[in-house]
Structures are given as C-alpha cells and as structure tokens.
C-alpha cells in the first residue's frame, strides 16, 4: 500500500512523535531509534513497558545506537527537539506543557507504570495536532484510550496491524475503540518515519 498524502503531511507537520509498545515491540523500537537521522527536527518520546527492578540496559543500548541525543526522562526535564526521551520505569510520564515533562508515581494503569495511556492523555492535552502517535505490539490494552484522546484532539494516530504484531492485544484494543487514523504494518510505519 502506498502511503497517502494526508498521513505524509500530518507526519511531516508533527513536532512530536510518541512511540509506544509493550511485549513484542522492542525490536521495532530499536530499529526506529537506530535509524532516525540526527536532524529529525522532532521530539521523540518512547514509552515501553518494563519491570520496575529490571535494571535493563535499554537506555544505554538505545543511546549507543542512536544518532539523535537520547536520555531517560527526569522530573521537570525540558522538552527539546532532535532528542529521544525514554519514559523511566516505575513512574508515569506526564507533559506539564509543551516544554516540560513531569513525573508521577501514582497507581499503575493496566498493571503498567509507565502507562502508555497516562502519557498519551497528557500529550493529547498539550500537543494536540502537533503530534504523531504510534502504538505497537503488546499483550494488554494500555494505550488504547489515550490514543483515542489523541485522535479526538487532532493528533495523527497510527496502530500496528495486529496481523503483523507479535502480540495482537494492544493494537487490537486501540482499533476496537476506533482510536486509529491508520492501521499499518511495521514496514509501512518505518517507511513513513523514514527509518
């Protein structure tokens, strides 16, 4: 399928890219991180479910393979362009305004902290139509409601085709509530993001 001009234009005009996934999304996220150009001129925010005491090397691995500056979010961090931000484990990541993150340790949502819903809903308030959000493979339904809110607020919302996802539940949940502007395979998503 050829990507149409609507999706290309809206992606082009986005200032912020939200990339979110759970089980089965790591390889896709890694591929994207590795291939973003240094001068993407957008802010990339990645939310990936993980265990709280899983002292993973995700940030290190991502940072070593990224041409963009990459950091794990700390409270009240400034939101810069040409930077990849990773939501830290055991916190929810919120957007205070277009320029600032804030963190939150409140209850897990869908057993998840970071929760994709929480960041998506906050981003919907702040970024509205300046935002593209991509929801990838995962085994629960986190992200669906937040993606719908993004869509209602004018963001471009893309969901990985469940047929193409390692874990279908998360993309399927979003599609079920009509949160997706577009349902695309991982290859089409990469093609759009040019990674």
């Amino acid at each position, binding site marked *: 399928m050829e990507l149409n001009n609507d999706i290309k234009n809206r992606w082009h005009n986005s200032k912020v890219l939200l990339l979110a996934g759970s089980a089965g999304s790591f390889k896709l996220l890694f591929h994207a991180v590795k291939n973003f150009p240094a001068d993407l001129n957008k802010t990339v925010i990645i939310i990936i479910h993980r265990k709280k*005491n899983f002292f993973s090397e995700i940030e290190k691995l991502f940072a070593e393979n990224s041409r963009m500056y990459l950091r794990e979010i700390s409270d009240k961090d400034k939101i810069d362009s040409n930077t990849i931000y990773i939501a830290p484990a055991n916190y929810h990541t*919120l957007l205070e*305004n277009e320029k600032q993150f804030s963190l*939150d340790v*409140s209850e897990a949502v869908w057993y998840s902290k970071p929760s994709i819903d929480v960041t998506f*809903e906050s981003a919907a308030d702040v970024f509205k139509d300046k935002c593209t959000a991509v929801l990838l493979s995962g085994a629960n339904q986190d992200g669906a409601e937040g993606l719908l809110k993004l869509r*209602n607020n004018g963001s471009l919302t893309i969901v990985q085709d469940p047929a193409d996802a390692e874990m279908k539940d998360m993309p399927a949940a979003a599609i079920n509530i009509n949160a997706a502007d577009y349902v695309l395979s991982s290859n089409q998503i990469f093609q759009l993001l040019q990674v």
Partner: protein
Amino acid sequence: MMNESTDTQGLTPVEIDELVNVVKKIHGFDFSGYSKASLKRRITRIMQLKKLEFYDLKHLLINDAAFFQHFLEEVTVNVTEMFRDPLFYKALNAQVLPYLSTFQHVKIWSAGCSSGEEAYSLAILLREAGLHKKSFIYGTDINTEVLKEAKKGIYSLRKIKSYAENYQYSGLPGTITDHFTILYDAATVQAELKQNTLFSVHNLISDNVFNEFQMISCRNVFIYFESHLQEKILDLFYKSLCPLGFLCLGSKEAIRSDAFKRRFKTVNSKENIYQKIGA
C-alpha cells in the same frame, strides 16, 4: 484509562485554578505550586470515582469538611513501596551510613512519608547497620489519614511479600519478613523498629523548621511541585540539616537550581544523594 471520558477538553486550567483557590481560602492548603499535569489527573480521577461534575466538586469542597479530607487523600499521591529503588538503599549503606555512624545521635526526617513504608525501610537499614539504637526517624506528611497507617505500622502480608524483590536487590541480608511480626495476613513492623520513630503532621509548603537532622529523605515528592516550590522547600531542608547533613531526593529528582547546587555537594548523582556544604 477505565471510564475516562474522551472529550477533548476535560477540566480547564481556569477550573483547576478555581478549585485551588477554594481549597486555599477555605482549608488553608496551597496547591498553587503543584505540577499542573498531575493535579489535573488527580482531580479528574476524584470526579470520575465520585461521579461529580465540576460544580458539584466545587460545592463539596466549600461546604463539606469531611469530603475535603477525602479530597486531600486522593489528590496527594500515596503510592509508595518499601525499599523503592533498592539501589538507593544500597548507596545509602555504602556512602552515607558510614558517615552517619560517626554522630552520637542520628536524626532522620522522612518528609512526605505517606503510610510509613520509607521510614520503616530506613529503620530496617539502620538496624542492619547496627545504628538503630542511636537513631530516630521522624515521618511527616500533610495527610492525617495516611499518618494513622504509618503509626500502626501494620501492612498486609501480601503487600510486604511484594517488596521481597526490592529488599533483595538492596543487598540486605535475610528477607524482608524478618523485620515483621506476622499474624495471619497482617505483618506488623517489629516493636524494636517502631520504637525509634515518630509520625506527625507537617506541611512542607507552609510549615517551618522543627528540628535539626543528620539526614533528610524526601523522595518522589518534588515531582508534584513546580520548580519555584521545589526551591522553597530546598531552603527549608537546607535550614533543617546539620552541617554536612545529607539530603536524599528521588532517583529522578535532581537539584536544578544553581543557588542550591552550590550549597549541596553531590554524593551520588544517580540516586540524587546530596550533602549540605557551606554555612
């Protein structure tokens, strides 16, 4: 989230300001320096749980004192764990306790202690380091209800067991249940640990210095405050610490203000452990 309405607006900033003003004028609690994103989420959550519209909520906040207590509990986040961020406790053990052991008495302030999990984690850490007998832990919070829980020191066994992994990663010997008296599903903090603790109400925003401490731990509280309020409370902490006393913030809460960077030396930049320097 479940039952979250998907309208495009929700609570507006103006409405949030209105509620903040009501709470300040009538109840004396000042939420104006709170991070707006989190505050909006918390208030929205209360409205959903109680099925309230904005004007219902405002009305209750003005007219119903009991409701306000409930509001206070819900709007302030009381999610906590024992040994949350185990590597922090490991760092304390390695970098701070050897220093504290040189003091004759060690007074510690757990600021924003919620239901006491952090205060008791510190008590356990001090006991394992042999410092418990000469130390005293003050836990404070603005929320009287959670302080009741903290004073009791009784947690469900299921909850305590969920902290077993944290405890293990913190590098302490034995298991977390060693520090509790267990009866059916209730795990009570051992009397010896409770002995040297005191829990009381203190509002970081409006109350003052009340003692001098060798260490202050205020973790995952600053995330709810805007930068200017963080600075105001850093000043309170600075004044509450003895010379070369330690300040511990959450793992994602660094000191950002240049003025305070000069007044605190970084002991551990990953866990945000600082030491007071200067006069």
